[in-house]
Structure formats: C-alpha cells, structure tokens
C-alpha cells in the first residue's frame, strides 16, 4: 500500500557509474597531490575541504539535536564491475565489517555498539557508502574505525565463506522471492546491453556462487583509497574541529593512483524491447523504461529538470495524473508510478510501473500509460499543475531538513556521482524555471518507442510441487 509519496525520485539513494571525464570522478593521485587543501563554504552552512592525499571532506552544521552522522562514500559500485564478478562491490561492503589487525573480528561492531551508534552501509550502482549515526561526542570513534578499515581490512577465507552465504540469502530475500523485483532486474538487463547498468547491484547468483576472495582483495586494493573517497559529516558540530580531526585520521592516509573505469556508454537502442517474466505470483505487473539522460550526461542541462517535473506531474502525489486518472477515474490500476533519477551518472531510465485492477488486463494498463504519455506530448500541462509541483519541491526541501541522515545522503550522492553538493543550493531554482513547453518537449524527445523497454510479469499458479528454478 502506498502512503504519502513526496516526489520520491528527486533524491533517490542510488546511482550509476562514473564517467571518466567528470571532474570529481576518481582523480589520479598525481593531480590531487599537488592540490592545496581548500575550504569553501556556501549559504546553506556547508563547508568543504580537500586534503593533500585527495580525500574530500564536506561538513554541514545542524544544531537541532546533539547528534552527528558520519558517512564515507567510495566512488565504486556495481557499475564499475565487469561480467563474471557482478556483486563484488556489495560483497566487499559486507566484508568491511569483518575486521582489521587493530580491530579484529567482531570488535568493529562491538565498538560501534558500545557507543550506541547506529551503523550500516549501502551499495548502489555508482557508490559504496558506510555510516555511523551517533551522539556528537563519539565522532572521533567513527573516524578511528573508518580510517582504519579504509586501508587495513583483513579478508579471511573463513569469514568470506559464511558472509557469501549471507549475501546469497539477501539476494533470495530481495529479488528471487519477490516477483516485482525480478521484473525490475529483467527490465534493466534488457534495456542496457553493454552499459554496466545491465547487471543488478547485488550480482547474478551464478557470479556470487563463483566469487573468489581474490576478487574481493583486488577490488579493495583498486578502489579503497582516500583519493577515491568522500567524508560527509552532518550534525551538531563545529566544522573547523571536524576538519582538524578528520585531517588527523584520514588526512595522513597514503593514497594510491586510481585507474579510472572505461565509459562503457550504451550502444544506441533502435527499437522497442520486450521481456516476459514468469514467476509464481498472484498479481500481474508491468514496468516501462525509457532511455533518458541524467544530469551528469545531458547535453541540454535543463532537460533532466524538465524530466523531473514530468515525473512529478505524473506521480508527485495523490493529485498527480496517474493517481487521479488511472487509479481513481478509470479504475484501471490499483497502483501506478512514474519517475526518474536525475542524479544518476550514466544515462538512465524514465520508469513507469502499474498493477492492473481485477477487471482489467495488463495490456489495458500498458495502453493507459501510453495514453498519458501521448497527452503530455500533445498538450501543455496546466499552470496549476506546474505550480503544485513547485510548491511540493519547496516544501520537500524544508521537510528534508528534519533528518540529518537524509541531508548527508544527498550531499554524498551528489558528490560521488560527480555533480557536486553545491547543486543542492540551486536545485529548487532550476526546477522552478521549467516551463510547460519544456515538459512537453522532453516527453516528445525521450518517451519514444525507440528507447522503450517493457517488462511484464506473467504470474504462474502456485502448484505445491512446482519450483522456481530460473
């Protein structure tokens, strides 16, 4: 059941791949070593400094509660992986909790637990990030632990064997036993052929089955170095003190050159692609994905903002078109969504999804989505709709301040995909400048058959003796 959705795709926590020509993408050590440490500051109370070893630190003050979040973002994710080792970034993320010489097996977690911190990590297509959320007096413990495991991880075969099983359970839980997630996985694998968006973040099961500890060791060696990382701290702190303390822990770490990944830009699509997923399920489900540029790859930099507004016109709340027309007026679908991750680094997909109601077929749901697209392409969206979208964006910006975790995640992801955290400050204004004509124009340009991939779930009946071998 969906509750309130607040323009969810504006700041989706997940991303893509690093284009080698973007300024903040994995810099070569040679360039960074010559750089002087600099501090910049913005109106939103955000401060930035780059250490001599190339590590970037961003601090945002928020004094509402005596707490702080510290996140370390690495510019590596599933989009850096090649076939055969898919899922390695994420498995390595799991292994990062296993220990170093200084904090051997189990002591990382017990140290974090002792200070009452909440800690975890997440892997996306273009990043791997680790965080501790804690009382502000414990920030140093977090720096101590994170700086230690940045370079000193011990990969033990025994830990690897059991943790790999944990990751496979995670894959079964999130994907294999979730029919809609299988559709999502197939959509990406079909839409993208040579782009690394092709494979899932968690990896193909066969690659997990054949993953070797050496693959992890190589991966760690290649990507885990201060010049490939960004530290983000948000909370009740003094930026000068944080910079000084971070310098002490992270600034003295030695960096290694990082070999940039190849662009692997997707071969142009020349016509509609369609994939069916048969799985034990009770409800049909459909996803559409249209190839679109992201902010990091757009030739016209207003286009991604127009696509974002388009997403909100279609699905930015209960008053938006898909809810209003398809769910309530026509009762064709029980739920439908649309949206787009403007902050991915590689060209991405503008997504639609729908679950038809009992009386309607998946074909009708699909046609209804095309009709909505056609409407946007032929008629200008109303001024009223545009005003509403903009009101929601302004409000969301305030609401977002209620969570330091959210604030840090936005900064970290913008920085890691190479857009820069400063974008936070101009985002609203750029959205506000989008016109009805621009919304129509991006719909005409990108929501076209040549760039379309359709993935459909075909539910199979549950017969007790059947199994779900795929």
């Amino acid at each position: 059941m969906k509750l309130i959705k607040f323009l969810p795709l504006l700041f989706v926590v997940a991303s893509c791949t690093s284009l080698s020509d973007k300024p903040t993408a994995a810099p070569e050590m040679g360039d960074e070593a010559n750089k002087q440490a600099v501090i910049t500051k913005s109106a939103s109370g955000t401060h930035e400094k780059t250490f001599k070893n190339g590590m970037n630190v961003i601090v945002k003050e928020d004094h509402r509660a005596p707490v702080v979040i510290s996140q370390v973002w690495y510019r590596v994710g599933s989009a850096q992986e090649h076939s055969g080792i898919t899922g390695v970034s994420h498995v390595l993320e799991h292994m990062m909790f296993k220990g170093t010489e200084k904090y051997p097996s189990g002591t990382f977690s017990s140290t974090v637990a002792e200070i009452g911190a909440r800690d975890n990590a997440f892997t996306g297509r273009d990043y791997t990030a680790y965080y501790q959320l804690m009382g502000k007096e414990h920030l140093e413990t977090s720096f101590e632990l994170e700086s230690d495991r940045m370079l000193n991880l011990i990969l033990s075969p025994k830990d690897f064997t059991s943790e790999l099983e944990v990751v496979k359970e995670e894959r079964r839980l999130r994907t294999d036993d979730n029919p809609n997630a299988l559709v999502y996985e197939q959509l990406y694998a079909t839409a993208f052929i040579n782009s690394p968006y092709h494979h899932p973040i968690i990896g193909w099961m066969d690659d997990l089955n054949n993953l070797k500890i050496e693959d992890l060791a190589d991966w760690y060696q290649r990507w885990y170095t201060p010049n490939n990382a960004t530290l983000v701290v948000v909370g009740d702190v003094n930026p000068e003190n944080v910079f000084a303390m971070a310098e002490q822990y992270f600034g003295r770490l030695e960096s290694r050159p990082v070999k940039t990944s190849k662009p692997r830009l997707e071969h142009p699509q020349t016509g509609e692609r369609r994939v069916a997923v048969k799985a034990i399920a009770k409800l049909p489900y459909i996803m559409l994905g249209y190839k679109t540029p992201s902010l990091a790859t757009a030739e016209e930099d207003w286009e991604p903002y127009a696509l974002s507004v388009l997403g909100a016109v279609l699905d930015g709340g209960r008053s938006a078109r898909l809810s209003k027309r398809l769910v309530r007026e026509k009762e064709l679908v029980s739920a439908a969504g649309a949206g787009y991750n403007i902050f991915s680094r590689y060209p991405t997909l503008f997504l639609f999804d729908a679950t038809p109601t009992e009386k309607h077929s998946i074909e009708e749901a699909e046609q209804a989505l095309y009709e909505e697209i056609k409407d946007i392409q032929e008629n200008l969206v109303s001024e009223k709709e545009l005003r509403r979208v903009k009101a929601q964006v302004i409000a969301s910006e305030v609401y977002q301040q209620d969570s330091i975790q959210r604030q840090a995640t936005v900064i970290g992801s913008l920085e890691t995909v190479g857009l820069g955290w400063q974008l936070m400050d101009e985002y609203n204004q750029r959205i506000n400048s989008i016109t009805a004509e621009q919304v129509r124009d991006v719909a005409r340009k990108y929501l076209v058959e040549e760039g379309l991939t359709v993935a459909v779930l075909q539910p199979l009946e549950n017969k007790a003796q059947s199994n779900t071998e795929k």
Partner: protein
Amino acid sequence: MNMKFKLTVSCSFLLGPLFLSVLFAASQAHAAPKIEQWQTSNGVKTLFVAAPELAMLDVAITFDAGSGRDADLNGLSQLTHRLLNTGSGALDADAIAEQFEDVGAQYGSSVNLDRSSIALRSLTDAALLKPALKIFIDVITKPSFPEKDFLRLKNQALIAIKDSEQRPADMASRAFYKAIYGSHPYANPALGFKETIELISLDDVKNFHQQYLVAANALITIVGGIDVGQAKKIAEQVAVNLVQGAKPETLAQPQSSKEVADIHIPYPSQQAHVYLGQLGIQRGHPDYFTLYVGNQILGGGGFTSRLVKEVRVKRGLSYSVYSYYFPLQQPGPFTLGLQTRNDQSHQAAEVSLETIKKFVSEGPTAEELTSAKNNITGGFPLRIDSNRDILGYLSLIGYYDLPLDYLETFTDKISAVTEDEIRTAFSKHLQPKNLVKIIVGGPESGANQNRQEGGEQ
C-alpha cells in the same frame, strides 16, 4: 507495490521491523524534549513539543481504533481510514488531494493493532498552514464516504490481500499472529481477509467512523515551529469538530493457547521464512525495561546480538535475524524472525531455539549487560533527533498513558536493570518449549518433525 524506489540499494544489514525505533525509548536527562500536555475544551488530551528550528509542523490525531476494533469485519478500520480523504462536503478525492498538495502539505493515515493515526505535515507559513489544517479537519470530521470510492478501495484491499499472498514473509506473519492469538482480535491482519472485506458495507464504514473517530477516543499530538498558544488553538480547532462520542471498552485479554503450534506452509520460494514466538507483555508492564535490555542482548538491533552471532556471523544462515517484544494495550507478542534457504530452515530454527534456551537459562554475562546498557543509553539522542521521531513518542506516551517524564527517566531505568532481573524476567515470560513455530517455504515434506531434538543436522 511500486518497488522501484527501494530496490536500488543493498544494505549490509536488514534490521528487524522498522517501527521498533519508535516503540522503544531511552533517555538521558540532558536531551529529552519538553512536552506540554493539556486537554481541549471538550476533553481531548493533547501533547505538544515546540521545535522552532524548522518552519514546519507535524500534527497527528490518534484514535483507539486500530484493527483490534474490527470485530468480525476484518479490514474495516483500515478501509475506513483510507476512505477519509476521498470525500468531504462538496469535495471529492481529486479536490482533497489538490488542496493538500497545492500548499505542499502531506497527508497520511495508518492503522495498527491498537491505534489508528491520521497525520498532516505542513509548512508553518500561515498562508499554507491554514488551508492545509482546514482540509485535514474536514476529512477526519466530515467525510462523505462516496460509494464509488468505497467500492474502489474495497477492490484495492482485495488486491493488496492477493499481494500479501505472494509474499512468503507476509504469509508467515499472518500464520504467526493467528497461532499466538487464536480468536483474539490481535490474530487478524489490519488488511483483513478476502471474505471479510467482501462483507463490509458502506454503513459499516460510516458506523465505524461514528463510533471510534470521536473526541472521547482521540489524542492530539503536535510537533513543530509554533508556540504553545498556537498549538492550543490548533488542537482546539481539531477537537471541537469531533463528535463527542464515548471511549470504547478495552480489548479482552488474550489467553495463551494450550496447544503450541508448529506449522509448516509449503511455498515454492527460494527461502523459508521462520518465526518463533509466544505471548509477551503489555505496554506499561513492570518488567518492560528488564525485558527490553535483555532482548537487546538476545536479538536486538545491531550486529552484536547473540542471535546475529550464532545464526548470521558464525553460520551464514540468514541475512537478517532478530527478536523483539512488541507491547500493546494487551500483551503483544515476543517474536523471533529470520529467513534462510529452504533446506536450512530447520537448522536455523534449531540454532535460534538453542540460543534462546541458553539465554533464558543462563541469562546475560556482566559484560554483555554493560555493553547493552551503554548501547541503549549512548544511542538515546538518536531516538529523538527529528520532529518525526518526537511525534512518534508523543503518540506512544499519550495513547498508552505513559508518564510524561517517560523519556527523561528511561535511561535511568535502563541503567538500573541487573543480570538477576533479566534472568528472572526471562524465565517468567519466555518458555522455549512453548514457542510457536511457523515456517513458510519449501516443499511439502517431513517438515514438522525434529521439533524438540535440537542439534544442527
């Protein structure tokens, strides 16, 4: 059902149910927010915390109208709440949605076993807040319950039920509550069942609204960038529009079932979902803090609990394994949950059971207890670091009549818990031989054997 928003990241650890962070509190004297409490002119209890830092406001109305009040029509409370914003006076669902969203406000409702909650988030700018509040009050107090939307949402509920029937986790959870609660209202999911949803009439919805969404049964909670004078005005405005009504009687006390269920539901999934549990304690129970600290050691949050060590770290059996007490108006369940490859489900259940047995008989070590206390007290500020978190606590404190200094005194109570108390409380409240066991997943086989024998294959 729209999964695209959550699929893109994989985390190292899936915590137990997310609502836990709101259900359990801890405190240190220095950081607890100042709670103001009063009654409106018609007697509605109101709790308020001023949070002047951000120009936003959260208001929630909580009713003693959770799914426990569904009687025979399971799903009625949830359906009624979901219908509120589909019509009021001359406004239809479209107009209501537009009125909220034109001013950037967010509206939502939720229902659990005990309570329902209807919430508004708005900016505090009067030009935006005023219209948002007006429509918020109108949908709660003067819903028109259009027939068309009633039929549509009934259909949606049926689809949601089907959706839950293709998720082994939901199937297991349903079987678990049924096994523990039998004929008690807590046995039934808020979503209801196909048969009961089909029975619900529009009059049932109207009657439910008239009976339960009333002043005598309401609690108002407010957090945000306004002063207490403004908060009083808002609470008054909300309250006086509610029909006075009467407070419903408390729910019956659930009885422990004499037979201990051991149920395997075959399902062609890759993983089996395993639940172990039994009847636990009610909110406000004197052993609550002791069990909370003890459970932190057994299967509470983080990577360090005994269950995580035994099931995940040592054996790689599950991505997520956890246990928790879920105190309600009446005794809520103690739940242990995990998921594992089908052929390992019995091994994982046995390892879990052994872990529980050992903990109940031996209790925690002094070291574990110190660490758990440090963890809970050290993490206290995180529990109340946002307006949303504080609002959750106000609803908890107000609804369950917990003392207003609940947050201020929590860490002291945590710190006072001893090893002996934990041992005593667990032997009193947790009987390993009486644990219900539910496994969903895997083929039909000799699945139900081997129950008591333990061992790890």
